[in-house]
């Protein structure tokens, strides 16, 4: 069983194709949509948690590539600007997945981007704007 959070970029021509449906029917993969939108440049963007058997998962990824969907792992997307963060901790109760926590010893804010689902709730509420989105 493999489970990964990935960001899919759909080019304009694929936006109205039932790509995720194929992943389920042909490759027996489970999905959880964490975020989806169409950007002004008419590129579709979707953040998926995708899981299934190893070989099915790999085939599914191959299928996505063959369609022209660009992919990147989710962890690259929300980045903390370490020079800007003041470690106040006002982001901590905002984070729905505990990707942002306070270290009880140092009282510094820890950011575990493996737990981040890129909801971006922390981005605008960060007083020094240290949380940055890089899609």
């Amino acid at each position, binding site marked *: 069983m493999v489970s990964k959070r990935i960001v899919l970029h759909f080019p304009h021509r694929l936006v109205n194709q039932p790509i995720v449906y194929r992943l389920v029917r042909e490759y027996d993969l489970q999905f959880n949509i964490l975020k989806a939108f169409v950007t002004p440049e008419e590129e579709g963007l979707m953040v998926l948690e995708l899981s299934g058997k190893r070989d099915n998962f790999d085939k599914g990824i191959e299928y996505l590539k063959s369609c022209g969907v660009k992919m990147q792992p989710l962890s690259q997307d929300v980045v903390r600007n370490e020079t800007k963060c003041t*470690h106040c901790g006002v982001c*901590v*109760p*905002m984070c729905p997945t505990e990707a942002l926590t306070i270290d009880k010893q*140092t009282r510094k804010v820890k950011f575990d981007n493996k737990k981040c689902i890129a909801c971006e709730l922390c981005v605008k*509420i960060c*007083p020094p704007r240290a949380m940055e989105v890089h899609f």
Partner: protein
Amino acid sequence: MKTIKEINEKIKKGEVVVVTAEEVIDLVRKKGTKKVSQEVDVVTCGTFGPMCSSGAYFNIGHSKPRIKVGGGACKLNDVPCYTGFAAVDIYLGATALPDDDPRNKVYPGEFKYGGAHVIQELVAGKDVRLEGAAYGTDCYPRRKLETLINIKDMNEAVLFNIRNAYQNYNVAVNLSDKPIYTYMGMLKPNLGNANYCSAGQLSPLLKDPYYRTVGIGTKIFLGGGVGYVAWQGTQHNPSIPRKENGIPQAPAGTIAVIGDLKQMSPNWLVGTSMLGYGATLIVGIGLPIPVLDEDVIKCAAVEDKDIYAQVVDYSVNYPNCVPGSLGEVNYDQLKSGKIIIQGKEVLTGNLSSYSKAHEICEELKKWIKKGDFILSEPVAPLPNANSGYGFKMLKERPVLKKEE
């Protein structure tokens, strides 16, 4: 009993014993207040949080021909400054916004750039764009000015904050069913989170609750450089009810501070954007407490579990000045990450960085130990708890129109 003079002698000889506001807690637990008051000379406190009543004044120098922006207009990177002084003196407030900032018209406004951000860029040594407009006089004929300017080109650049370092603060929550955007951060509906803003056991005025050692003229760490307490801060309210240990249970004392901006650092003056609220400046302040006697150490050793704050609703009560607390919590509970309000477990967030406040305590300790920072004697006390000095709400009165 020790005097500030005696402590300064020790600093000069390199014999001074300095501990941070955190270290003193452990020391007192191990050795007791009497012994620690004999052994320790200075306790360093610190705080690093958003402080809106901050700003800086500048003398930009005279152009050729001369211009009188006094009574005219002046902007730094599009952020308007106050010009109601002589020809080329201006004051830039932390919360000032460019005229074309949409504010909260697109709600919640982002307030990405304001006076605080200009101050941070100036301190970082960046050039900023200065625009001046004047009505022109015989002695100051010029009407317009546009130039790049750097902090090192200015005659004076002085940080002058009229209210900083609040002694204690509210814990903000939202009882309504809509998210609200406040100076205490975004508050999720139905007690979705509880935000507080204090360094607690490190915070300067919480460690000298009756202002015994801090007064007008006290030398402090300000924005990474040296500053002074100029006056009591605005809204200084020492008459707030206190616990037995002297700690006010709600926002109480404040200080106005001043210092040369040119020797400060962008690490300790940070431009900040509060979503839906405005721009503000995070200010780093460190205060040395001279250990004059055992009472001073008793106060300085107060810890988070003995410092209480009030939980206040910011959806209805705060905006409408309806008094009332939803309960009292201590900073130990706040720091644990969750508190119980009305039977509900609520996650907490701090707007004031404890780890940075701790760095300030350590930095000031280093300065004093090295002999670089001599303590000053206050020249006058701050109004104290029994002074009758207090805080008034505005009484509005009708303005009668003159009859024609």
